[in-house]
C-alpha cells in the first residue's frame, strides 16, 4: 500500500470516529440533561442540578464519547491539514439529519435538505484534495 493511500485511509477512519463520537456524545448529553429537567438559576437550583449531573450515567457516557471526539480530533490533526479535517467534520450535520429521518421519522424542510446536499458536495470536494500539504517534521514514521 502506498503511503498516500495509507494516509487517506487512516484520515478517513479518524474523521469517521470523530463524527460518530461527537454525534453520540451530543445526543447522550441531550438525553441526560432532559432526564434532569430544566435547571433553576438559583444557588440551590444549580447545586442540585450539579449533583444530578455528576450522578447521571447517561451524562457520563456522553462525556466519554466527547472525550473520544477530542482525542480523535487531536490525533488526526497530528498528520492531516486543519483545513482538510475541519470541513470534513461537518459531514456529521448531514448524517444527523439522515438519522433523524430514518429512525426518528422527523420531517425535514426543503431548505434543510438543500443544506445537507451542499455539505455532502462540499465534503466530497475537500475530501479529494491532498490530506496533508505541510512537510512532516521527521520522515519515516508512517
Amino acid at each position: 500500500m502506498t503511503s498516500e493511500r495509507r494516509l487517506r485511509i487512516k484520515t478517513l477512519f479518524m474523521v469517521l470516529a470523530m463524527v460518530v463520537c461527537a454525534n453520540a456524545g451530543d445526543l447522550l448529553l441531550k438525553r441526560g440533561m432532559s432526564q434532569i429537567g430544566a435547571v433553576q438559576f438559583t444557588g440551590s437550583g444549580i447545586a442540585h442540578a450539579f449533583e444530578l449531573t455528576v450522578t447521571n450515567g447517561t451524562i457520563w457516557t456522553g462525556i466519554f464519547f466527547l472525550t473520544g471526539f477530542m482525542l480523535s480530533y487531536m490525533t488526526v490533526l497530528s498528520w492531516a491539514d486543519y483545513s482538510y479535517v475541519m470541513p470534513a467534520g461537518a459531514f456529521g450535520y448531514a448524517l444527523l439529519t439522515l438519522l433523524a429521518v430514518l429512525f426518528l421519522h422527523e420531517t425535514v424542510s426543503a431548505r434543510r435538505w438543500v443544506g445537507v446536499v451542499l455539505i455532502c458536495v462540499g465534503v466530497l470536494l475537500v475530501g479529494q484534495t491532498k490530506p496533508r500539504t505541510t512537510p512532516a517534521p521527521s520522515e519515516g514514521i508512517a
Partner: protein
Amino acid sequence: MTRVILALAVLILGSTGGEIAITRGMKSIGEPARLRPRALLQFLGRAVRNGWLWAGVPLMALSFYSLLVLLSWEPISFVIPASALSYVVGTLGAKYLLGEQVSPARWAGVILVCAGVALVAVG
C-alpha cells in the same frame, strides 16, 4: 448590536484560534508511531506536555462561554448559522498561520460546507 458582533467575533476567533493552536501543537509532536493503545498513550503523553495545546484549550473555553452568552441574547437559528462563518475563518487561519495549501477545490468545498451548515441549522 455591537455586543452581538463582539461576542460572535470572540466565538469564531476563539474556536478557530484554539483549534489552530492545537493543530500547531499536534504537528510539532508528530503523529503516533502506530494506532495501537501503547503508542497512542505515549503520543497523548507528549501532547499534554506541549505548550500549544494549553494555549488552545483556554481559547476554546472562551469561545464556548461566548456561545452560551450569545444563546442567552439571540435565537439559536441566528447563532449557529452565524457561527458557520468559522469554516471560512478557520481556512484563512490554516492558510496564513499554518502554511497549508488551500487549493481552489478545497476553497469551493469549504464555502459549500459553510452555506450548508447555515441552512441545516436554520432548519
